[in-house]
């Protein structure tokens, strides 16, 4: 009698490793014993279910990444990622957080240098979609709280994410995410930083102005308004505190001040 834990282990390995042979001892139709070989096509259903469902899950949360390289390339890339980093939780909506890092290292995708940046933006979008909810602060409430006080600390929306990219990632994401054929578009020079936030039901993606990413990331890290502004000014001397603060409020990114 083979313990079930051994059967389960062999089965799981054979499913994950497409090259592995069918685990024994399986039986074919009507319970007649087989050498194992004759249930290959049947066993392959499991291999296909596992990989196809996980590839679908990745394709659904990285749709623009997939479009940029084409379905066939994306599926091959996703399959390798799944083999290297299979899900570790039954909560599948968390799966894929390390996919952008995998894309960076995936040399066949090297001809699309911004691919990993787009993947990071898409993961931020996905994370924002499922993040905790919170009520945004209005401009009136912020004024009341004393926005001139520079030692105030700002709590940002739990859905908020910042993606910094050496490529114009927001523009690429917007153009490539549209259905149908696009007119050729001149991509802006230099990188773009994205602010991703879901104030209510819709995830919003905006370009951050110069210094904005440093500013928001500092606030997110718990810095006071003054500290965050001076960090931003170190990177971007022309950093405009009022404009950036107004941008955060209209994005619905601020939840409270204290």
């Amino acid at each position, binding site marked *: *009698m*083979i*313990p*079930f*834990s051994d*059967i*389960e*282990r062999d*089965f*799981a390995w054979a*499913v*994950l490793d497409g090259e592995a042979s*069918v685990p*024994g*001892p*399986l*039986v*074919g*139709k*009507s*319970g007649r*014993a087989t050498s194992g*070989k*004759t*249930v*290959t*096509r*049947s*066993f392959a*259903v*499991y291999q296909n*279910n*596992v990989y196809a*469902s*996980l590839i679908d*899950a990745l394709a659904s949360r990285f749709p623009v990444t997939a479009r940029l390289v084409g379905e066939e390339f994306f599926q091959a890339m996703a399959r390798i990622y799944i083999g290297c980093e*299979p*899900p*570790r*939780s*039954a*909560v*599948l*909506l968390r799966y894929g957080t390390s996919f952008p890092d995998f894309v960076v290292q995936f040399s066949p995708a090297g001809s699309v240098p911004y691919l990993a940046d787009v993947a990071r933006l898409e993961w931020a979008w996905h994370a*924002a*979609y*499922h*993040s*905790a*909810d919170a009520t945004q602060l209005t401009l009136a409430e912020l004024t009341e709280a004393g926005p001139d006080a520079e030692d105030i600390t700002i709590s940002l929306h*739990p*859905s908020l994410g910042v993606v910094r990219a050496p490529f114009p990632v927001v523009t690429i994401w917007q153009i490539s995410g549209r259905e149908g054929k696009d007119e050729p578009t001149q991509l802006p020079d230099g990188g773009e930083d994205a602010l991703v936030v*879901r104030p209510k*039901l819709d995830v919003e993606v905006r370009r951050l102005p110069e210094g904005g990413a440093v500013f928001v990331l500092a606030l997110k890290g718990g810095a006071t308004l003054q500290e965050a502004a001076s960090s931003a000014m170190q990177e971007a001397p022309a950093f405009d505190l009022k404009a950036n603060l107004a941008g955060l409020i209209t994005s619905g990114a601020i939840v409270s001040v204290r």
Partner: protein
Amino acid sequence: MDQATAQVTANGVIAQNLTGNGPMPSRAGVGLKPEHYRDILDASPDIGWFEIHAENYMGDGGPPHAYLTAVRERYPLSLHGVGLSIGGAGPLDKNHLARLKALVDRYQPALFSEHLAWSSHDTVYLNDLLPLPYMEETLATVCAHIDEVQEALQCQMLLENPSTYVAFAETSMSEVEFLREVVRRTGCGLLLDVSNVFVQATNHGFSASDYLDSFPAEHVGEIHLGGHAEDSDDDGEALLIDDHGRGVADSVWALYSRALSRTGPKPTLIEWDNDVPSWPVLFAEAKRADAVIADRRSNRVRVSA
């Protein structure tokens, strides 16, 4: 474990209440899909209930919870887990059980169900319902896991018969014998997936009718119907794949009617999870199941009159 309580509603429908969270009508329901959130909330269609895959609602917030909350205010809910790995050799994931309990507390489902299958090995989650041999060892493990689930969720659960593509030499009892013994030892109920019976009967070469006729019908709390794909095995014989990617086949509708004749009217789910159709198409499948239930009910009335 508390047995299911039953009550007769105004229209004479026997309603079951397994979790203590209100009645589940013996009507058709469908899986709640994001594609249909707006259709459902705009039109409030006359459908008995909705089922959700628990794992799709384990995020912290956002549109899934907002829409589910709105849908739940209008309809009864069935909570269907796909990731607990009840049939696995290892221990249940306590964190996952806690997440399920949080969903039960928040959404007050009338039913909770899971599968006779495993989906995790060690720390890896395989995202598929994988098969197990039916033998004393796995029977003891499955029963211990179900005890743990029912204790954690404080309700009776329904265990679903699987669709499988291979069988194990280690198997020493039939699936129906296995399920019957699980029910006897744990007090759980059963979710009878008629499509899985049809798929398995074809794949393993047994009679679907015999399977249904021997199934412990008195313990069935819910029925599933779903579409399947056709392929062939290495011998060139039919290999059916339970892909939930199309409408329910006529042969499965016939088996459904046969199953209802033994179980009586039961909450019946149309499973259509891949290539999800437009709302009217899915709703039409549910109405077809409702018609079969109504037909069964009127036959019974005629017989008893």
